[in-house]
């Protein structure tokens, strides 16, 4: 291949990588509304392998992490603070490092992945990547039926 052609291929590679980066960034952290699957809190808790008592009264943020996830600790702090500041909302962090079956059951392809359950134990949303705080706060408001003061 000629030098100019090789340079063009490299430029195309750079362009493709940039485009991929923008696509990933646009999708990362979006709150994707689920179809409300799952029957009740105890079924949802059993599927996740946690005690039903660990679920929140109004909503539960279930965060999937692994031991080697650069952005999971930050997400855990973010979701922990959100849960602490919203009544009836709990945050659960599940380490998938030892749970390949759980990762397969919930089709987790990236960490952190966050599932949002309502008070009845139905899955209401799924978030891949560190959640966008504003979008998640809006969803939690609708789940906890609490209106926020517009700033």
């Amino acid at each position, binding site marked *: 291949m000629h030098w100019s052609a090789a340079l063009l291929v490299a430029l195309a590679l750079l362009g493709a990588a940039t485009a991929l980066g923008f696509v990933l960034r646009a999708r990362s952290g979006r709150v994707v509304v689920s179809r409300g699957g799952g029957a009740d809190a105890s079924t949802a808790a059993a599927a996740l392998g946690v005690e039903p008592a660990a679920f929140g009264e109004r909503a539960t943020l279930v965060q999937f992490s692994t031991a080697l996830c650069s952005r999971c600790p930050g997400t855990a702090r973010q979701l922990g603070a959100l849960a602490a500041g919203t009544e009836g909302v709990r945050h659960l962090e599940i380490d998938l*490092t030892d749970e*390949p079956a759980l990762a397969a059951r919930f089709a987790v392809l990236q960490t952190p992945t966050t599932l949002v359950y309502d008070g009845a134990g139905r899955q209401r949303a799924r978030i891949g990547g560190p959640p966008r705080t504003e979008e998640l706060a809006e969803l939690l408001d609708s789940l906890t039926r609490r209106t926020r003061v517009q700033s």
Partner: protein
Amino acid sequence: MSRAEPTAIDPRGPRFSAAITAALLLVDVVLGLAGAELAAWLLLAALALLFAWGAFAGVARHPFGLLYRRLVRPRLAPPAELEDPRPPTFAQGVGLLVAGTGVVLGALGLPLAVPIAAAAAFLAAFLNAAFGFCLGCQLYLLLIRARVIRPARPLAGSLR
């Protein structure tokens, strides 16, 4: 794999290293495609050695990481938060695997493997440097799901 907490690092260090690595990998793609086969192979071999350094000694001791600490970090504000060095260290291992495959196949008489491996490694390094995505870290979960990586502790002790 150790579960002991290692010293936290400035997350901008690995991204700085990834930027230099990505630039060199892109140069390697051009060299490999333009027919400078020996130069491309030597550069990829050098980069594979750097990946090995990062993977086995840890990202904190990677030469580009040391460069960051000496020259760049003193000029910047302190980081907003520190980060666990294990995910980027694991990603260095993934980089070693990709670059190493290209080096071995290149030595076996497949010169096109060198720019292809360099292009794959470039994609991961570029996304890390420019967008903060750690593809190597995400691969860890997929390897767990494929049961390539075995749980570090037996499941018998777990309630789940």
